[in-house]
């Protein structure tokens, strides 16, 4: 149990997707102007990652991994080179499905952050989560925890950046630094803060 908790905290803080691995920076920077949009995006990412990472884990180990076809008498079949294509398909399909389900059963929730779902079909952080899961050989439970943890980490980071940027709205910045430039500097400072979590995780 302690391992699972540690994995969750590590995925959320020490290995924060946007701030440590630079994954999903496009949406991270583009949708953090307002705290409300940032929160919607964060929730959407957490849900999608919580679904797709374990799903991809099951598909990878059941179909694609080297030796997965041993039960059918084909122990030498190695389909792992197809994993990228499969993961992209899975993510896009689950995003689509999630959107349809939400629109049907949870229309109010859909109205508040459903607009971000299509954007997540091709998002580095989500695909990166699945690829890291393969590289580190997580089992199904670990994959679920890892998916939810890194999604929550993304949500935390994007909401914090959104909050700081709202505070900066009235600041008188040099014109060249306005918008994208200052967001990068802010993200860098947040990244400094998050790198201290890595020290905590190491102990």
């Amino acid at each position: 149990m302690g391992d699972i908790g540690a994995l969750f905290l590590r995925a959320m803080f020490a290995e924060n997707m946007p701030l440590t691995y630079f994954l999903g920076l496009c949406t991270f920077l583009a949708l953090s102007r307002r705290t409300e949009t940032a929160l919607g995006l964060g929730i959407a990412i957490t849900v999608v990652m919580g679904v797709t990472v374990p799903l991809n884990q099951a598909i990878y180990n059941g179909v694609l991994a080297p030796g997965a076809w041993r039960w059918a008498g084909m122990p030498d079949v190695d389909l792992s080179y197809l994993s990228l294509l499969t993961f992209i398909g899975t993510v896009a399909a689950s995003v689509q499905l999630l959107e349809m389900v939400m629109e049907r059963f949870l229309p109010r929730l859909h109205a508040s952050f459903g607009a971000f779902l299509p954007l997540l079909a091709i998002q580095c952080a989500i695909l990166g989560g699945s690829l890291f899961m393969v590289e580190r050989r997580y089992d199904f439970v670990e994959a679920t925890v890892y998916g939810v943890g890194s999604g929550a980490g993304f949500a935390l980071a994007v909401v914090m950046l959104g909050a700081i940027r709202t505070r900066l709205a009235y600041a008188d910045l040099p014109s060249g630094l306005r918008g994208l430039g200052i967001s990068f500097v802010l993200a860098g400072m947040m990244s400094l803060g998050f790198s201290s979590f890595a020290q905590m995780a190491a102990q």
Partner: protein
Amino acid sequence: MASSESLWSTLSAPLIRQNPVTLQILGICSALAVTTSLDTALTMAASLTVVVVVAAGVISLIRRHIPSAIRLIIQIIIIASIVIVIDQVLKAWFFELSQRLSVFVSLIATNCIVLGRTESFARSNPPLRSMVDALGSGLGYGLVLVLVGACRELFGMGKLLGMQVLPLAESGGWFTPLGLMLLAPSAFFLLGGLIWALRSIWPEQAEAPEFPPYSRGPTDTGEAR
């Protein structure tokens, strides 16, 4: 000749002035993590350039046969297939390098530059023009990557491409490596600074303030940009 001139401007425009990374915030997702040293940055830049040029060429060749309702899916599948090939090539011949690049080569598939170029340009232009345009974007991305990678490796370890350029203090030289340069935050700071520099040179690229300062008269509005 007019056409070769426009080809040249298609190629050179995205290099600095219309750089996809600094102006359009495209493709930074997978860009920064590989810039701790120059050789990974170079590999990444080369891989992305190959992917975007080939993808643009292929999609431009079959552009009249793609039904527009499912064009995104087709484009993504083509791009992902090329990325898989690149990934396998790197694993076969440059295994050590591909281990250090980890998942980031695969993530080229989700790079916004590739899909952006194929969607906005290759879909409606002949193959040669599309490939030149893609080459320009790929090189523009590569330029930023190499610049950041060179800075981080040079100031973080005093090396370039693994060779000692600045003599280290601990081995009798004068240079003390900056540990921060090897950590994630420095990439953000360097890229932020780069954007600042570019937008100071070309002020028209600067973003308008979200809440322009209150102006007292009609004469002030022109200055407040």
